[in-house]
């Protein structure tokens, strides 16, 4: 009995992480039909933010450290949301209606973000800031001129070279004068450990098992996020706008809903949720540049199984996949039967990675019956 309870609990716990990660993805996909390959990297940014916040609070020490996690959650949300906003304004909005291209572009962004956290140091950060100030400031100044449209191409070319050159020069000078202090990477390629506050360590004893507090915390966090998103979508004016754009973009635009703002907002929200997910994930282990990659495919599968019609899809999809993965991965099924070939079969799949193989197989089978997922979008407009 307790083993089944433990199975359900662990499955739910895996599922809640999946859900947290998939929530943002599902909202964005539902609204814009865009799959964001950099979603995992936004999670990773959230995790790194947690790491930074933790270090900050460590130096404060004392009781404050016990509550850094709440600050970290908010910080992770904001950082990821801001990066998401930049991503949407800078890249994705030019690619609406071309989902496959968006896939490739966001993959490029994810590569850049991965390498960024590996090699970011003071020189790079300062150089980047200088570049942005010079380039965008310069563009803003030039844009005031009356003949801007005519000289646009030249302005971009000149400003781009100039600001790149200046920021490289400054970076070089900095590196020469301060040496290692500024050229040492902040994080490096190694994984970093995040220490959970003491009240999240240990676990709630349940018979022979222990329910880790960190996992309970993540489950509560997930519930809070789902409820929060639900309330936001259902009760707030912007939620109403998001829902209306999801259903009919053109009609919403005609009614005066600023669809561009809705897109940007939704994307930022989805990215922020990824940041929160990253923060949660960092409690379970170390943080590394590849943190996001480990989750991304599973979260995509959640969206495939759940369908894009409703939030419930993501919730149920994530929980089912989480439980399946756990139940298959631990070989629990093998203990349920005594029929030898079946036992062999189940033990063959009884590792975490082999469980994924089995789950994928099951998903493909599932799609034979429900091609559009659990909660498909309905109506005659779907397949115009």
């Amino acid at each position, binding site marked *: 009995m307790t083993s089944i309870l433990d199975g359900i609990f662990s499955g739910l716990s895996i599922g809640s992480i999946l859900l947290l990660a998939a929530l943002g993805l599902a909202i964005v996909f539902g609204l814009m039909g865009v799959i964001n390959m950099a979603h995992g990297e936004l999670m990773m940014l959230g995790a790194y933010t947690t790491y930074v916040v933790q270090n900050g609070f460590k130096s404060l020490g004392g009781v404050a450290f016990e509550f850094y996690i709440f600050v970290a959650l908010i910080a992770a949300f904001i950082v990821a949301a801001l990066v998401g906003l930049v991503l949407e304004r800078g890249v994705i909005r030019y690619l609406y209606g071309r989902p496959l291209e968006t896939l490739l572009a966001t993959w490029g962004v994810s590569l850049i973000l991965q390498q960024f956290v590996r090699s970011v140091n003071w020189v790079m950060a300062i150089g980047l800031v200088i570049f942005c100030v010079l380039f965008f400031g310069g563009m803003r100044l030039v844009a005031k001129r009356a003949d801007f449209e005519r000289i646009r191409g030249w302005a971009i070319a000149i400003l781009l070279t100039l600001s790149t050159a200046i920021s490289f020069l400054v970076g070089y000078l900095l590196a020469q004068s301060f040496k290692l202090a500024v050229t040492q990477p902040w994080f490096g390629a190694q994984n970093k450990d995040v220490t959970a506050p003491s009240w999240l360590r240990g676990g709630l004893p349940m018979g022979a098992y222990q329910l880790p507090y960190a996992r309970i915390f993540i489950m509560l966090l997930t519930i809070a996020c789902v409820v929060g998103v639900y309330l936001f979508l259902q009760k707030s004016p912007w939620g109403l706008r998001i829902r209306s754009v999801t259903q009919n973009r053109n009609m919403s635009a005609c009614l005066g809903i600023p669809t561009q703002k809705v897109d940007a907002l939704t994307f930022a929200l989805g990215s922020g949720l990824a940041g929160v997910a990253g923060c949660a994930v960092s409690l379970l282990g170390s943080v590394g540049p590849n943190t996001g990659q480990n989750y991304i495919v599973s979260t995509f599968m959640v969206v495939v199984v759940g369908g894009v019609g409703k939030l419930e899809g993501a919730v149920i999809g994530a929980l089912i996949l989480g439980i399946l993965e756990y139940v298959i991965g631990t070989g629990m099924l093998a203990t349920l039967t005594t029929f030898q070939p079946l036992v062999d079969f189940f033990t063959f799949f009884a590792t975490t990675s082999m469980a994924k193989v089995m789950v994928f197989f099951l998903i493909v089978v599932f799609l034979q019956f429900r091609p559009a997922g659990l909660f498909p979008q*309905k*109506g*005659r407009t779907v*397949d115009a």
Partner: protein
Amino acid sequence: MNEKILEIENLTVSFDGFKALNNLNFSMDAGELRVVIGPNGAGKTTFLDVITGKVKPTEGRVLFKGRNLRSYAEHAIAQMGIGRKFQTPRVYLNLTPRENLELSCNRNKRVFPTLFRKTPSAERRTVSGLLETIGLTHKADMKAGLLSHGEKQWLEIGMLVAQSPDLLLVDEPVAGLTDEETFRTGELLLSLAESHSIIVIEHDMEFVHQIARKVTVLHEGTVLCEGTMDEVQHDPRVIEVYLGREVDAEHPVTPLEDALLEPTGTLEVN
């Protein structure tokens, strides 16, 4: 010509409880040209969707030449001889009109014949003939994306004919066309009607006048009435659904014809 080409019995289609078609009965003879009209949301497009297999009936059945279409997919239905032209012209923009027509004209549409069989010269001749009919001979080898709206409409009608179906379903063939183009489209449809059965869905009443022999009026998913243009125009129920008010003595109704002959925009905002 008493053989029925299309029979629809007690057809109901519901989306999430909303009945787009409600207990609809319809039949037409082989060789007939039928015009279907009806206000917005009457279920006209769903009607075509069901016939072409895009939407499966919730209840009831559709018989084409006596065969129930329920278990067939869209492509199978198309091969059985039902061709469809869409509301907005859907031609392959990156192919030339000639290639567009050749694809539709291809007799054996399975994978390997399409790959290995050479285009027979008979098909080529059909295509050239069709290009002439739809007036695109001299634009035959430029991308269809460069054609004008009217030319695309005609190209799509050409593709429909190239399929040589027995039943043509034509959804708003004159939307967005000039008066002259509209008239020519009407002529084209009339000449096609000599050898095919055709269902036309249209809002442009002048155009309906030009081609209509028998008209079916759809309303809220059912057939409201059926008859010649004259009969339909003077049917009080039709007047009611089109003008949206009770017929009573104190407010004499504008003759439907006037209303219908106004620019299409008043009746139908698409």
